[in-house]
């Protein structure tokens, strides 16, 4: 299995959330937007100069700050 931080996934790849390395507050906020363990995300835009990354979760586009993306552990689907 190939896990890494969400911030390290390249553009246009798909990945699956496996773990959150953050507090309850962060997990809650992400879960409100439908981003939970097991959720498949598509990377629309990777971080640029410390900026946020943009992912597609279901039919929702979400921008996630770099630090938060560092604490989301995902498993990259090999295509």
């Amino acid at each position, binding site marked *: 299995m190939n896990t890494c931080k969400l911030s390290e996934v390249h553009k246009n790849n798909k990945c699956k959330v496996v773990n959150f390395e953050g507090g309850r507050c962060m997990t*809650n*906020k*992400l879960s*409100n937007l439908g981003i939970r363990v097991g959720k498949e995300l598509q990377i629309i*835009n990777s971080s640029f100069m410390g*900026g*946020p990354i943009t992912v597609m979760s279901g*039919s*929702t*586009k979400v921008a996630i700050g770099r630090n938060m993306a560092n604490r989301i552990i995902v498993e990259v689907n090999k295509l």
Partner: protein
Amino acid sequence: MKKILLMGNPNVGKSVIFSKLTGTSVVSSNYAGTTVEYTKGHMKLNNETIEIIDVPGTYTLNPTNKAEEVAVEMLDEGDLIVNVLDSTNLERNLNLTLQLLERKKPMIIALNFWDETKHKGIKIDVNKMQKYFNVPVIPTAATKGLGLKEIIKNFNYKKIVEHNFGNDDERWSTIGKIIRNVQDIKHKHHSITDVLEDITVKPLTGIPIALIVLALSFMIIRFIGEGLIGHVAEPFFESIYKPIILKLSLLLGSDGFIHNLIIGELINGDIDFGQSFGLLTTGIFIPLAAVLPYIISFYLILGLLEDIGYLPRISVLVDNIMHKVGLHGFSIIPMILGFGCNVPAALAIRNLENRREKFIASTLMATTIPCMSQMAMVIGLLGSYGNKYLIYVFSVLLVVWIIIGSLMNKLIPGFSTDLLLELPSFRIPSIVTVLKKLKMRVVGFLAEALPMVLLGVFIINIFYSLGIFDALSLTIGPFLHRLFGVPSEAIDALIMGFLRKDIAMGVLIPLGLTGKQMLTMSILLVIYFPCIATFVILLRELGVYDMLKATLIMLTSTIVVGGYLNFAFQGDGFKILRLVPVVILFIIIQFIPKIKSKNSVEMNE
């Protein structure tokens, strides 16, 4: 009275439904968090008055910010919940729906944006959903008025259903099950909107696009504003209004206190709307002819950008810059709103998460963002010295913004939270909604500005005849003169600026300032203190202690910036070498260590 609550996630169109049902206008936009306080409205149904409450959007009943807290508090008050959902985002929306269903309140579900499901290839089985939840489910398209009658028909719905969906994980797995049962998504090819949505957030394409959008917006705002002033407002005031007022002036005897209060002083036997300073001349001219055209053009463009859903894209693009001043990308939205009026901007700051961010954002906004009322006057007055002066104003304010911001970030313990923002789909704005919103903001401006400017003109006349202004320019005035190089009478403008910034700019007209002095005053009037309306909101939002700190920052900035401008623009020109102190200051700030105190938790609460 029956109370009906409109509840749902942010940006699902609750406010549009509210406006359509009650006829009361509320500002709605295509991004999360436009409604921060609840709004009440009424509608008549079969001789019964029903109260409808537009509740701020929330993702969950476990609130994470103040706007969401408001939403949860409202819950107990309602007789019926209308849960509004975005049908194109069913999964995420159902999380709140399931939580609401557990509350044992009569509830109906509105599947809004129903019209958009078709071209997004989404099929939702309404009947199945209805059976599953055992509550009425109504597809709606609020901007087009679809399905609203069905909602009204169900206003007497009283059945309470009992549901228990268990803990978070169980709830989400239930949602997954429901989605698989009721929703069918056909994968559609990338449409033009999809492409646009993506290239506007990718930095390499997004930043140039943002710059073009901003430049275009500025040009259009100025074009419409100047057009309205030059072709509508001024001709009306000069050729229709003035002759009437001149007759009135004769009737009042052309001089004396009453005459000067109502008509103002005649300049060479004629009325000068900028300089006469009577209630019916300058007092009417400033809000209606000088400022209103720019208010109209600004809010037209802002409304379009809001309803298209463009503003959150800017948040994403500036996120890393905003972290340098201790904020995250979302805080750019209050800053943009501040260019219209600082009051709604101060309210929007409530959406930020912790005290530190609220303080930094409020202080930055109130200190460096000029409102349109003032900008309209600045463009009119300073613009006549040359466009380069307008560029100076914006550049100086930007530099002050960066410096104060990074200083606060370094010196206030704590850290900036991370951006987490849903990006709305681009929508083609409905012209009716945009115009309605524009009308509402214009009416709001008139209701606020007209009385305040008239009060201002009244006070100016009283102060003038009592000799208060003379006393001020003799006592405090000389300090201003020495420090900032402006005439001592400029103190009058600073006094009036507490009331409103447009009238304060107006006070400068008779002084015959040089370009440099006008530039200095234009900038100082932005920085030194917010107008009373903004101050009241900030005081309420920040509390006395933080407001005091913010005031100190403003005062210091005023002295430093004013002094610097006096030095840098000597001889009415700017030389690149005079940037040296700014650069040095900037380098020093980079070396200031970030303060991490034990109390850092406190500011982040």
